């Protein structure tokens, strides 16, 4: 249960966003705002378009219309590789580790935009603290790691960017419960240190526990939004996402 430490200053504003992979529109008129310092969650069923929304923010969607602005930058017209330099780290769904690099090289690559700046070593040490498993495996090729270990690499690599906004697309996918727990604790710490966090999480109860506010998506549109703790009590949510 985090109290939103939002400052009220807009961080990310999305207006009437539509996006497609070449066929039908996968996002239809999505609007969303996020404030500096917020911990925001997006939940929704499969194929609701959550990942697509995140990809659009990062400049990975081929066809888009509408508006995305991040601290005054027009993201829709920013090439994907410049987005991280603005301070956005995106941990993609499905791990996407660099399979032929060692764990440590993966992490170092995460710090690419930081150039020669110092502190890269410290960041790595912090990530090894969070995921001791990775420390054991630091010289192993990431492609030979177990699924969950790869997920740790992906999250750690994203954190290496030292971002203003950390975007997490299903970070707990395939992780052991104990690791999920620790990782979410760490997300809190990161958030508390001033980083805004945008989280997509299928583990809805966890997401609503972590986030201050949440948007609920279905078939390409925002259904509704609200304070996370309130949504957790909402019947519509309980039925669809908190079952089992």
């Amino acid at each position: 249960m985090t109290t939103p430490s939002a400052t009220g200053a807009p961080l990310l504003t999305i207006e009437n966003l539509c996006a497609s992979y070449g066929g039908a529109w996968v996002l239809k008129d999505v609007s969303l705002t996020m404030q500096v310092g917020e911990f925001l969650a997006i939940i929704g069923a499969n194929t609701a378009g959550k990942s697509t929304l995140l990809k659009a923010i990062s400049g990975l969607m081929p066809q888009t219309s509408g508006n995305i602005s991040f601290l005054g930058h027009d993201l829709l017209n920013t090439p994907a590789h410049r987005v991280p330099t603005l301070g956005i780290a995106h941990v993609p769904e499905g791990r996407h580790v660099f399979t032929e690099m060692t764990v440590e090289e993966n992490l170092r690559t995460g710090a690419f935009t930081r150039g020669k700046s110092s502190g890269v070593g410290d960041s790595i040490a912090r990530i090894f603290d969070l995921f001791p498993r990775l420390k054991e495996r630091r010289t192993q090729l990431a492609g030979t790691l177990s699924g969950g270990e790869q997920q740790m690499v992906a999250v750690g690599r994203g954190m290496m960017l030292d971002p203003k906004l950390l975007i997490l697309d299903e970070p707990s996918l395939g992780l052991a419960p104990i690791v999920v727990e620790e990782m979410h604790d760490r997300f809190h710490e990161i958030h508390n240190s001033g980083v805004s966090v945008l989280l997509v999480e299928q583990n809805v109860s966890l997401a609503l526990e972590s986030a201050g506010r949440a948007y609920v998506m279905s078939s390409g549109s925002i259904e509704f939004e609200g304070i996370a703790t309130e949504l957790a009590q909402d019947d519509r949510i309980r039925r669809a996402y908190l079952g089992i």
Partner: protein
Amino acid sequence: MTAPILQVQNLTRRFGGLVAVNDVSFELDPGEIVGLIGPNGAGKTTLFNVLTGIYPPSAGQILLRGAPSGGLKPHKIAARGMTKTFQNVALFMESSVLDNVVTGGLLKNTLPEARKKARAILERVGLASIADKKAGDLSFPERARVEVARALCTEPDILLLDEVMAALTPAEMEDVITLVRSLRDEGITFVVVEHHMKAVMKLCERLLVLNFGELIADGTPTDIAQNDRVIEAYLGSSFAKKRQHQAPEVLA
């Protein structure tokens, strides 16, 4: 008491210096639904890979219906009735969903029969509407379900499911659980790897726990949930706490 359908005896698999599966032994009775849990990197997927012949065992025995199957090629093992789904999803991405499933059906059928079977299975797992879509265009959860359908079409006796419920909504998980149960009733034996504890607890009648390649526990979900080693290595303390509050509901 029926004879065990699968016996695993002192199974070990190494990668260089790393022992991914370490001296593991267990048996499966026909019609069981067994959960295989354990921390990331514990060796669950590797165990599946050795069972299905992707990797040969470094040591130990596997008896499939009494006959040794360790070291056989995957297709031989599939023909003997054991197959698996892939954690990272390994569909034939350029082919349609239907064709993916048909290919599985060819193991025991002629092409026209395989087609018929595949359609029936797609119907059953609720994928009929996307039968003609290209597998590469599906979302991750959809793909995982196609994996299941394709494996089912090989008409297995033992099906090893590797995290097919990851990224599913609770409602969808319920569907999968219902499906697995009904398939079990038709005689298929399941081993399920899943990190979603609620789902595991609900679906499985027995749990195996791996840690650092070793089997550290084998018992009913209730027992496992109270096993200190498992809590420490895998479930975490808060899970144990939560369980105490919610125990009756979860086990329902």
